[in-house]
């Protein structure tokens, strides 16, 4: 019992200070992606919508409707189109309004 106590004192406090101070482990968390509209053509948007297993992506005209809430951060869209999809690094995604999680990403018109 005493040994455990002394060992604990030497190791120090392991509890995170979050949310008062940022937590270092947050940098390596899997997070939903962000999109680069320059790399996002209609064709790419359709391909991304087809391979998303969770139904988070849907192309509606010239807008890619992206439901952040449905995303599972699986990485398939990033593997499919590395130019269009980047890591967002955002994990503080809680909201009181469901529609705040639905983002409309503009799709670039392809220059023909």
């Amino acid at each position, binding site marked *: 019992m005493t040994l455990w106590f002394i060992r604990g004192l030497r190791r120090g406090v*392991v*509890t*995170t200070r*979050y*949310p008062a101070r940022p*937590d270092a*482990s*947050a940098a390596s*968390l*899997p*997070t*939903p*992606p*962000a*999109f*680069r*509209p*320059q790399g996002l053509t209609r064709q790419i948007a359709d391909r991304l919508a087809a391979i998303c*297993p*969770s*139904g*988070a992506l849907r192309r509606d005209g010239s807008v890619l409707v*992206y*439901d*952040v*809430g*449905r*995303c*599972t*951060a*699986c*990485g398939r*869209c*990033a*593997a499919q189109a*590395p130019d269009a*999809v*980047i*890591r*967002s690094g*955002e*994990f*503080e*995604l*809680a*909201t*009181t*309004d*469901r529609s*705040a*999680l639905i*983002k409309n*990403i*503009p799709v670039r018109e392809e220059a023909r």
Partner: protein
Amino acid sequence: MTPEDLRETIARQFGRSLHVRTLDTGSCAVCEQEIRLLAAPHYDLNRLGFFFTPAPRHADLLLVTGPMIRAFAVAARKSYDAMPGPKIVVATGACALGGVYPEDPFTHGAVDAVLPVDVWIPGCPPSPLALLHGLGVAVGRLADKVRDLPFTEANDPERSRGAS
């Protein structure tokens, strides 16, 4: 009571002491593992005044995971009804928010088909940090910031490539 008054009341009543009852409506239990980690020393939700309770009668907040399978709908409704007001419902995880499982004969697909959800926490699974943030938003201690995040990076090439 206006929504602002409601938020203020909730912040005043629950801001420093909140009892959470978790509810699994058919998830794969990974969300439950992350929730369980909240009680562990590293994340320690008790230091923020949040506590887990098994009884809905003693709970202020219902933390729901899973796609709300139809077989569980009655039990979910009963759990919600058994909570005394004021009460908050938080849906967490991609399944609960409508992803992964569509609506079909076995599942509703999203928690808000059966229960009135107040706060949504995305993630698959949501990390304990995301859950802490979500609980903070639920009691009004932390700001709801996803509304202002565009999730587009038009001119920033220094961001690392890939989603994970």
